[in-house]
């Protein structure tokens, strides 16, 4: 039995989840990573994607947009700008995300445009993979 680490998922408006997880898969900006007990202390920014936490009651998945995750040996806190449990994720919610990302990309300054477009593409990928 692998050890657990304390998993917290908070959005600006409320705390979405807090439980002991055996492993948490995080969609980092530079690629996905999995945090388990004893992970080296890391802070990473997030890209829009699916976050999976293996908890006592099975795998909980959340769709997150930007934010960051703070990982250390015993805990992981994910601060997501927006987070939605995958069960509640519908086509309309995704379309809202995409519309917002598209708007941001269109008004972004030249130096920020790459980033905004990448975010938009991540959103589109998220929608494609969720099958909505």
């Amino acid at each position, binding site marked *: 039995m692998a050890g657990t680490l304390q998993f917290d998922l908070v959005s600006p*408006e409320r705390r979405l989840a807090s439980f002991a997880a055996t492993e948490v898969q995080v969609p980092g900006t*530079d690629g996905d990573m999995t945090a388990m007990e004893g992970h080296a*202390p*890391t*802070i*990473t*920014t997030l890209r829009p994607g699916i976050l999976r936490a293996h908890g006592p009651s099975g795998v909980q998945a959340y769709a997150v947009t930007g934010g960051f995750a*703070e990982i250390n040996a015993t805990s992981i806190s994910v*601060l997501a*700008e927006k987070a939605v449990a995958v069960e509640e994720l519908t086509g309309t919610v995704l379309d809202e995300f995409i519309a917002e990302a598209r708007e941001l990309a269109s008004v972004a300054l030249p130096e920020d445009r790459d980033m905004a477009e990448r975010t938009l593409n991540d959103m589109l990928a998220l929608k494609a993979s969720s099958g909505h």
Partner: protein
Amino acid sequence: MPSLKDLKNRIGSVKNTRKITKAMQMVAAAKLRRAQEAAEAARPFAERMTAVMTGLAGSVGSSETAPRLLAGTGSDKVHLLVVMTAERGLCGGFNSSIVRLARAHAAKLLTQGKTVKILTVGKKGREQLRRDLGQHFIGHVDLSEVKRMGYPVAQGIARDLLDRFDKGEFDVATIFFARFQSVISQVPTAQQVIPAVFEGEGEVSSLYDYEPSEEGVLADLLPRGVATQIFTALLENGASEQGARMSAMDNATRNAGDMINRLTIEYNRSRQAAITKELIEIISGAEAL
């Protein structure tokens, strides 16, 4: 000496006023509870955010490549004051105390020869500032359509602020709001959001690995930090407004009660006086016969 009928009308009207203020107090109490819960729920996010940013700012802040949101533009000529007030009145000194703080701040900056720009959030502050500082207004955010204070509202304001900053419209931004302490005490507060200031020493940030890099994480976080600070301020303001309204309406209800008592005594007295007068008239009329 007002007539009996006048007094009776007066008492009736004060009673109606008391009913209204009592109802407003109860509504404010219910809203206050919700506002407090919202502020409570937002706290973990804001706290973690600040902790991580403080740590990062400590290690990156002094370097040459520090982002402008942290290091500033290198000048402090143009100040933007974001004055957050309520959309409605009848909440005691809530709006005026925020406005007073902002006005004092603006006056101080103006005597130092700085340029002052004002962005108002909420109708009441705008109305109060228009007369003497109206020429400094550069924008207004209307919250009257907002049913529930959500993060997107704060994001909208933050985006507007960051856009203006990118265009070089100002060097320093300060937000004005009332921090909620208790139902009877709300403290008007000024908080500088751009360039970001962090109090105290951060926790040892070198403990962490950063992905993509310290600068990258910080650059990503700073704009979010602005939005988070504005969101916290909006929530604090919301709770403060309801708290202030609750105690203001509590006072008003009590005053109305006192007034009704006073008027009732006066009414009874003049009623008795009228009866006595009539009796004397009848008796002396009978005696004269």
